[in-house]
């Protein structure tokens, strides 16, 4: 395998799991986790799953270095229906077809694994997630309101949040079909439905899990898990524009990317 990561910007599927049941998360209910004024775990802060600024020079997760970016059981390929597999392979063979290489928003949950920081700002009735990549933001109401009755399709979907014990649960729907799920070529339909779970741990990490359902392309739900950590330095979300000088589209040689399910 002679491919290496080059450059930041797109979700790295360090953690992709195919299974029916999520492993039990040990909720950090001992009181040793940070809590907000209302007693909920306080997710506010700068977080990152992978990337250069998190793990040193390259940011790549290497086996045996004791800094896993994943948790839970081993990954497996996304459970695509038979008809969809050929399309996945075809999309994955040409980087020019990757929406993020085209500088489009990464979509949910792929955005969580993009190797640059994100910031969570938790307030009484809304939680905000500010992503450095493409300056994406999500506003997640936590006041009990449902999704709007009629949703236009969007890249990041419509999010509503609630607390399941000490786990922040975000329901996301109303997607377009222009983004990929974590991984190369992992397309989805507008019927994608994502449930994210953010569980703060006593060691001040977040166990992140996204369950993706898409009855038009999957045979069963698929899960993606990351450990979100604070970057080692006093990080700030920086400006990141993607379109400015994107020469990749004109220099990519199609058919030379390798597909790893």
């Amino acid at each position: 395998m002679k491919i290496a990561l080059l450059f930041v910007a797109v979700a790295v599927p360090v953690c992709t799991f195919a299974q029916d049941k999520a492993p039990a998360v040990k909720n950090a209910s001992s009181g040793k986790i940070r809590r907000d004024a209302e007693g909920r775990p306080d997710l506010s802060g700068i977080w990152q799953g992978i990337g250069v600024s998190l793990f040193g020079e390259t940011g790549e997760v290497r086996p045996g270095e004791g800094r896993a970016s994943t948790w839970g059981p081993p990954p497996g390929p996304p459970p695509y229906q038979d008809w969809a597999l050929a399309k996945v392979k075809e999309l994955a063979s040409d980087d020019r077809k990757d929406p993020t290489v085209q500088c489009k928003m990464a979509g949910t949950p792929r955005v969580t694994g993009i190797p640059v920081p994100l910031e969570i700002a938790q307030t009484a009735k809304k939680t905000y997630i500010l992503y450095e990549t493409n300056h994406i933001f999500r506003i997640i109401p936590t006041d009990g309101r449902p999704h709007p009755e009629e949703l236009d399709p969007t890249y990041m979907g419509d999010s509503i949040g609630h607390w399941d014990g000490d786990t922040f649960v975000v329901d996301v729907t109303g997607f377009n079909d222009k983004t990929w799920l974590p991984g190369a070529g992992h397309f989805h339909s507008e019927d994608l439905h994502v449930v994210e779970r953010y569980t703060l741990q006593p060691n001040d990490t977040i166990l992140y899990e996204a369950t993706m359902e898409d009855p038009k392309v999957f045979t069963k739900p698929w899960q993606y898990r990351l450990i979100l950590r604070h970057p080692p330095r006093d990080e700030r979300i920086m400006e990141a524009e993607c379109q400015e000088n994107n020469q990749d589209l004109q220099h990519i040689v199609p058919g030379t990317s390798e597909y790893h399910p």
Partner: protein
Amino acid sequence: MRVRLFLALSGILFVAASAFAHHSFGAEYDSAKPISLTGVVTKIDWSNPHVYIYIDVKGADGQLVSWALEGHPPNTLRRTGWTKAALKENDTITVTGWMSKDGSNRIAGREVTLPDGKKLFLGPPAQ
């Protein structure tokens, strides 16, 4: 269980992490063609999604040849020790990296050695 999980993950993590980024290395560059060049900086494009540094390199025939070095985006370079003032036009630098697949004079930059000998990260290694 812990051992089994580690073994299961170890075979997959690096492959998965290496295969996808803004674009994969293999989509533009050839890991079998490493290159090292010394030249004079003619232009610095501190741009997104990739920084470009242009240098003139004197060939064996004495002619100057322009090369473009592609690097990580500005934010990443900032976090690995760069400042915009670290490099300026007319500096003589040595760069390592890998040549492009399309035959153009472009390099996936790995490391830049500045005039004072300091080395700065420009991009990850080819794997």
